[in-house]
């Protein structure tokens, strides 16, 4: 018998569409892409069983006329697994939406931070060249103003007079 061209075309189409969707940042599309890929793989398994035949039931068909039952068993298992994981992924997408109001694959902030790090050692850095949020807590510019320092000192150490001697500022102003 001649091999059918329909299955390979469908499989190829599903794979192409699935990969395309999988490349998207939106999680719903990733999920749809995963489902398409899963179906494509199931069809691939089905076509791996060879030409189609009668239902593989003893007494219903002769052994030569049966289609191969093993890929069908494999497909059933794979469908169950795909189904379960798709459900889990949907729950995860919903959770992501509840948490951060978006359902895209997010950037790993730690990666960004590491990538942004300057390649100079901390000792070589002039704190004045840094952006204010990168300066160490004790840098003078991190406090709002001198009178802010004075007010805080007065609050904490009442009865002890303040002056303009170089005191450690109490805390970052931005915290």
């Amino acid at each position, binding site marked *: 018998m001649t091999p059918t061209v329909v299955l390979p075309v469908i499989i190829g189409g599903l794979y192409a569409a699935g990969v395309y969707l999988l490349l998207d940042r939106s999680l719903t599309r990733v999920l749809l892409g*995963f489902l398409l*890929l899963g179906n494509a*793989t199931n069809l691939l398994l089905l076509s791996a069983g060879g030409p189609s035949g009668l239902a593989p039931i003893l007494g219903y068909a002769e052994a030569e006329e049966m289609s191969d039952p093993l890929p069908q068993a494999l497909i059933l298992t794979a469908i169950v697994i795909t189904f379960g994981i798709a459900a889990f992924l949907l729950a*995860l997408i919903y959770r992501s939406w509840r948490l951060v109001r978006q359902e895209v694959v997010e950037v790993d902030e*730690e990666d960004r931070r590491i990538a942004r790090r300057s390649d100079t050692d901390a000792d070589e850095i002039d704190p004045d060249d840094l952006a204010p949020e990168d300066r160490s807590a004790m840098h003078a510019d991190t406090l709002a103003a001198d009178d802010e320092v004075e007010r805080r*000192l007065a609050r904490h150490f009442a009865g002890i007079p303040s002056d303009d001697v170089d005191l*450690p500022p109490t805390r970052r102003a931005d915290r």
Partner: protein
Amino acid sequence: MISVLTPLPVLLPLLGAAAALLVGGRHPRTQRVLSILVLSAVLVVSGALLVLADGDGAAAVSVGDWPVPLGISLVVDRLSALMLVVAATVALGVLVFAVGQGAADGDEETPISIFHPTFLVLIAGVANAFLAGDLFNLYVGFEILLTASYVLLTLGGSAPRIRAGITYIVVSLLSSLLFLAAIALVYAATGTVNMAQLAVRLADLPAGTQLLLQSMLLIAFCIKAAVFPLSAWLPDSYPTAPAPVTAVFAGLLTKVGVYAVIRTQTLLFPGGALDQVLMWAALATMLIGILGAVAQTDIRRILSFTLVSHIGYMIFGISLASQAGLAGAIFYVVHHIAIQTTLFLVAGLVERQGGSTSVDRLGSLATASPVLAVLYFVPAMNLAGIPPFSGFIGKLGLLQAGVEDGGWLPIVLVGGGAVTSLLTLLAISRVWNRAFWRPRAQSPEGDTFEAAAADAGPEIQPAAVAADAPGAAGTDADGGADRSADADTDGDAAEGLVGASAVAAPGGRRTARQAAWKRHAAVATASTPATDGFGDEQGRERPLQPLPRVMVGATAAMVAVTVGLTALAGPLYGVAERAAGDLLDRTPYISAVFGGEDVP
């Protein structure tokens, strides 16, 4: 005997998981005891299997007594028995750690009623993957362990875990689909998925088809094993999970991938067609992984990157395709499962003790908790391969195998392996220096009043201030007043300390200075940190709690296991060498499945 024992490492955790789920909500204590008992039983069974498999050789069990190529077969040979023993050991250690953590924290970190059943299912999946005698059962084993790992990784459902979980799940799904497609193609080409039968039938295929099937399987397994360039998902997703989860993932999940690569390269495709590619991949994995580790500042991320990097050693050993190389790889897998799990457990303890895993924020851990320092130091040196430890033995075995091979590429890899080992030492000793030895005061997070007062040093002491004053006065706006103040004698210094509030008055400047010093002293000696009412006090200075004893005990036991690997290195390396011989021979595996009959 062996036919009774073989299914147990899969069955026991699955049944245990069901029971743990049933008792979960109402009897958390029963649940903990139950899961620990189940895993102990798995460990005992695995140990018995290893003894049997090492004594009598490989054995196979046909589930449900179906005739061999039709039914599902579970195969125990030396390699899978050895992997089972190590997996059960680390799983038990991690479980006890998790129980300790749950007891210490209550249920907020790890919802315990879900954690225990899922953890047992994960172990069932790992055991199933190690025992699987056909490709599809291997796929099912992978899916069991992956599905359990999805749940464990997103435990609690906080935003960072969801973010990490999504990356992890999508990548794992892709590799599973690739694996499934490869199974479909393998079945289409050979008409079987039984690995022993495949070992015979695949050899008859045209070389091109073989290469396609082999590379599809290898890509799927290399994603799971985190081999560069397929490793980027790992450092992004592992560090956010709870400490015991990360530990068991780091120890076991990638090694299941490595195990599958070993089977592919020895049993299914022994021709060594892709060895060169694997060697380049191993070199890139080692170097790029460890360079990533050097760049990181978070302990868990550093460990994740060293995990990726050291997978390269195992792939190197496999790609040599010699008995020495495979033996080295197997020994290294055993060593690395234990060591990486232990280090992640220690990272969990560090986070507990120091309140963070970022080395920028940690300090003085060696004085705060000397036990923790020892627990970190021993496995860390072991990981880097410092001589008395098993890491050294494993690396030495691999490097010797590489030199024996003699080709230029293995020699390059030997060099790469040595460099990686040194860079590992750099990465982990940086953690040691910063988190354990550096005084907390020097870390950016240690910028506190106390630290500032201590760092300010002698120049703000009263005598020194007086001596410095003439020099400093030139820059002061009110330099004239300063100078006149300094003209006073030291005699009236004591009375000026109290009550003075005027800065404008002559001599008030000096008084103010002394008052400032007093304030410094008050700040520096304050027993509790000052509060300014901005509400950022809580969490900044956690009171130092003693580490929970169970967690320290579990970690110490794991450290003892890693050290014990050194003591047992001789017999262990013997088992690894015999296992490698079996793998290259292939007949023990095939004849175990087919019982000496001709392979159909």
